[in-house]
């Protein structure tokens, strides 16, 4: 399977996907940790995909989203953004609104 197909499958079959460096239990980069903490704080169930374990995914997700950095958050197939946008949306309350709109359970 090509990286593009694998990414499509991941974001179609998991409601909330975070492409990150490290795992949700043990993020390997401060930006990935920030987004993980936001999602944990909102009590959102998500799949963390460790791109450090798969170079083709690491490159593939950058091309797929046309976005040069990691982490990247997908909610129901929609690219939400990287760390800065997620953080900004969390602080303004827009992230919770987004989850509510998409009927994703959160606190």
């Amino acid at each position, binding site marked *: 399977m090509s990286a593009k197909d694998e990414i499509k499958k991941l974001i179609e079959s998991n409601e909330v996907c975070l492409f990150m460096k490290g795992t949700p239990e043990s993020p390997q980069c401060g930006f990935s940790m920030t987004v993980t903490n936001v999602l944990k704080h909102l009590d959102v169930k998500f799949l963390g995909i460790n791109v450090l374990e798969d170079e083709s995914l690491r490159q593939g997700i950058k091309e797929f989203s*046309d976005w040069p950095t*990691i982490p990247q958050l997908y909610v129901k197939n929609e690219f939400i953004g990287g760390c*800065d946008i997620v953080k900004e949306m969390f602080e303004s309350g827009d992230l919770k609104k987004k989850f509510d709109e998409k009927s994703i359970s959160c606190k």
Partner: protein
Amino acid sequence: MPLPIKEIKELIISSIPDAIIEIKDLMGDNNHYSAVIKSKVFKGMSKIDQHKLVYKSLKGKMGNELHALSIKTGEK
């Protein structure tokens, strides 16, 4: 290789001429920055598109020479 603040500003200005840019070197290592960028061109654009425009202005350096640049965009 680290990218100095001056060069980052020049790259952004070359794509977004009216940009007002404030950059902080967070760790004093020429490698971890935060930038606040204001421009009229951001009007009506989604946050994702605003950030993409800034990334494009950095011509592939983001995620490579430029390891960490946190971005905040806004309309002028």
